[in-house]
């Protein structure tokens, strides 16, 4: 690696290092200077988590070669406030609850600092526009924008610094806006996520991933990679000592591909080496011979007779079918005045947590195999890994590092097994940090769904029967599909008491990126269809959308779709609360928009016109419509 003497001012201190001038400023800050408050969310200039000031200008440090920062003055999130103190903007984030997982937050704080420095009088719209290059997956931005506006008001003297102080407690801490206890560590960049942690003698892992959607592995030759200088070990499925298989419901996924690959991006082998670059180079020396197999890319095809079989244990490619039956749907449809038939579909969705998967594993002094990672389910992961490693449960230890966003996507044990195997093989700590592309290709998604819906109603809007069928693409592995299908089925027909139901949800295997747990676990896909149906029905029957929902809603004593007797049901209260707060003007949903009188009032923002937003004069404080 060519080295160069790099000199710059970082957070007010002179810094000199002999280092690779081609590396990114981001790596230099994180790896050479241990300033890990600057995060890598994408490595491609698209998320803003790596934002720093270079000579006073906000830049994305993942896009800047460190050589270009030669002689520059750099400020990172660690340099904003003195140790133990917080700047006004950081206090404002603390006060409004603007940090959730915290992974975007150092970048957000930097972008907000730039707003306050460059446009201290910025309007709300200008704040949003200036922060528009920073992605947050957790907060919905509202409290972040609120924090910037609050800090702006304090900095410009429009508000007293007292507004940044905590609220005083009344008679109870329950119901009180206690400020998040973890916020100071997040707004200062001090919190260490797994990818920020280093251990002495740590090796770095890189993973060889399948370029094929469905292929037999004829052979794997790792000898050349193993012989490379700087390589600590290479692992494949052959290194697994116990029963290879994990999954939230069915253990159908090997730690690394065993015999065949089932989706593009599946792990096939992994290398641990002195540094990540060496590990990545070694991957290119691993020779894998594949024999292509016919692939399945559509869930309907998976159910056809003679379809390729993806898992031997499931010759029909069915991951899970959940049926729910209640009452007599024939009679229900016979009693209907109106029968609606519709079809709906939802897409596959990426969790897009800003923190890509990362972890460190080591074997401790008592031979306990320890994995530190942002796992959402350390309890289950410990169980599964003990079986995979053929170790007693108490010789496997999982520590959950701060999670930079999960949303269900970090419930699957897709890399912890590899880390453990490499740590056992080398007796060194081993760290793996996914790239964004790797995270997107290898992690589970929200199940895409296709729903066919048949609903019968009486003229006055009472639902007499529902037939609900949902087919979901589970992708290559089972992961959470079983549970997702169960929850989708249970919740499918919404908060309504319906006497006659026929519900089927099915997830099937394909060779697409696996689907797994994602916030709502099937609940949103199913209820998207139901809530669309409710409005379609309301339109046909000339009923107000709130009214048709009230005519069918569950009440205390109702029998749910699974025939559970409810002791209470707050649906009436939330309907009324939303109706009142939004000042809803009643009427049937017949493209009433142009005639409505309730639009544009309190609780709405002005629309923005793309382009016009960017022509706003800097000093304008007006909303730009």
């Amino acid at each position: 690696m060519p080295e160069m003497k790099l000199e710059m001012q970082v957070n007010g201190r002179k810094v000199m290092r002999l280092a690779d001038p081609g590396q990114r400023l981001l790596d230099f800050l994180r790896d050479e200077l241990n300033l890990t408050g600057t995060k890598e969310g994408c490595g491609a200039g698209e998320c803003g988590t790596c934002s720093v000031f270079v000579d006073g200008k906000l830049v994305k440090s993942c896009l800047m070669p460190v050589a270009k920062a030669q002689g520059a003055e750099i400020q990172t999130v660690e340099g904003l406030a003195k140790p133990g103190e917080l700047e006004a903007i950081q206090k404002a984030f603390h006060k409004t609850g603007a940090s959730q997982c915290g992974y975007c937050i150092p970048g957000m704080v930097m972008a907000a600092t730039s707003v306050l420095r460059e446009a201290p009088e910025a309007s709300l719209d200008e704040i949003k526009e200036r922060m528009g290059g920073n992605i947050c997956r957790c907060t919905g931005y509202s409290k972040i924008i609120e924090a910037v506006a609050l800090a702006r008001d304090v900095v410009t003297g429009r508000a007293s610094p007292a507004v940044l102080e905590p609220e005083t407690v009344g008679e109870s801490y329950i119901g009180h806006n206690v400020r998040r206890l973890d916020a100071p560590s997040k707004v200062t960049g001090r919190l260490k996520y797994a990818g920020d942690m280093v251990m002495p003698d740590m090796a770095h892992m890189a993973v060889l991933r399948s370029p094929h959607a469905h292929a037999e592995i004829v052979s794997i030759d790792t000898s050349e990679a193993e012989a490379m200088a700087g390589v600590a070990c290479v692992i494949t499925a052959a290194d697994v000592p116990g029963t290879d298989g994990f999954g939230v419901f069915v253990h159908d996924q090997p730690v690394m591909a065993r015999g065949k690959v089932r989706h593009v991006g599946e792990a096939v082998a992994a290398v641990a080496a002195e540094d990540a670059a060496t590990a990545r180079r070694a991957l290119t020396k691993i020779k894998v011979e594949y024999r292509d197999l016919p692939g399945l890319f559509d869930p309907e095809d998976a159910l056809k007779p003679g379809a390729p079989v993806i898992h031997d244990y499931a010759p029909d490619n069915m991951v899970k079918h959940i049926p729910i039956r209640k009452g007599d749907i024939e009679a229900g449809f016979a009693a209907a005045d109106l029968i609606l038939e519709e079809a709906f579909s939802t897409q596959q969705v990426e969790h897009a947590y800003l923190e890509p998967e990362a972890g460190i594993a080591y074997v401790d002094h008592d031979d306990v195999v320890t994995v530190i990672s942002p796992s959402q389910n350390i309890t289950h992961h410990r169980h599964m890994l003990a079986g995979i490693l053929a170790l007693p449960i108490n010789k496997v230890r999982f520590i959950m590092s701060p999670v930079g966003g999960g949303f269900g996507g970090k419930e699957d044990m897709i890399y912890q097994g590899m880390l453990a195997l490499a740590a056992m093989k080398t007796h060194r700590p081993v760290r793996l940090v996914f790239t964004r592309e790797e995270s997107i290709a290898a992690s589970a998604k929200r199940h895409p769904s296709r729903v066919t819906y048949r609903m019968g109603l009486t003229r006055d809007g009472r639902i007499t029967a529902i037939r609900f069928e949902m087919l979901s693409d589970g992708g290559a592995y089972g992961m959470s599909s079983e549970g997702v299908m169960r929850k989708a089925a249970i919740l499918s027909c919404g908060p309504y008491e319906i006497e006659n139901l026929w519900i089927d949800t099915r997830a099937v295997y394909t060779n697409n990126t696996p689907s797994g747990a994602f916030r709502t676990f099937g609940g949103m896909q199913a209820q998207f269809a139901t809530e669309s149906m409710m409005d379609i029905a309301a339109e046909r029957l000339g009923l107000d959308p709130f009214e048709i929902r009230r005519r069918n809603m569950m009440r205390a004593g109702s029998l749910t779709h699974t025939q559970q007797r409810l002791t209470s049901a707050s649906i009436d209260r939330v309907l009324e609360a939303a109706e009142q707060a939004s000042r809803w003007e009643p009427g049937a949903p017949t493209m009433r928009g142009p005639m409505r009188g309730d639009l544009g009032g309190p609780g709405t923002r002005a629309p923005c016109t793309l382009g016009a937003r960017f022509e706003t004069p800097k000093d304008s404080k007006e909303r730009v419509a």
Partner: protein
Amino acid sequence: MQRRMRGRGVAASWYGIARTATVDRAGAWAELDDGGTAKVVTGVTEIGEGILTVLAQIAAEELGIRPEDVTIGDNDTARSPEAAHAGATRQTYMIGNSVALACREARARLFAEIAAHWEVDAGALVAFDGELRAQGTNLAMTMAEAVDLCKRRGVVPVGAGHFTAHGTGLNPEDGSGAPWQAYVFGTQVAEVEVDTVTGEVQVLGLWAAHDVGRVINPRGVEGQIEGGVVQGLGQALMEDYQTANGHPVTHGFAKYILPTALDVPEITSILVEDRDPLSPLGAKGIGEPALVPTAPAIINAIHDAVGVRIRSLPATPEKVLAAIAEKQAREAAAAKAAE
């Protein structure tokens, strides 16, 4: 049709709290510590939702100290009791109640000693915000003094607690069963503007009314709702993970479009409290339910604005334009036929 058309839509929803169709459980340990502080240990906590702060509030309330005096040790299978996983909208319900029960046991140990010392009934003791007193007397001391006294009497005020949610499995034939013991309900109203030339949909306002059982931290609940709504908005209008013959096509954030600060509506959260009768705290949850009604509320609002029904998510500008064109062609054909 005018260029910019507005409309509103509503969607309702329901959700179950904690793990589905099974017995869910979680455990925690608590110790009232020197100086009137506390240690709480449990197996799973923060994934960004704010549960650490919620647990500190619960512990503070139960122990009579301040949230900042609570230290939470957590998330280590070799050092903390099992609390299962961070998901299923179960953290406040499962871990929150476990922590409350563990703290109650620790507090009972301390109160027994102080009551004996003061020669009053332990039932007369109340502690809040670092102060302990015996009701109906003028006896009072700080919690720091109370812990010190308790320990000098030879007792370390520790407690353990666990909480169970009794869900049942589903019958494999007809799906009958009681999958959860606590349910929440929500309703959202969306106001949108549709640009009939570009097909772009902006969500301008969103009202979200959610039953959470009991609010522990209002701002935290709002934060969950706002985050959920914006994820729902992303799924309704733009996010779309695509593969071609199994190969990911949307492999970075340049291709996989996420909502930014510019896409966010003004969000009004309305917190409804229908307390859970089966748990010590009465709180339920909000993490997942917050995003369930967002997409259908937006899609129903698009229909209200321009009269087209989007049945396939996301409602991209292309899809909205195609639907408008199709509707106009249909109407033109109908008008022609009527001539």
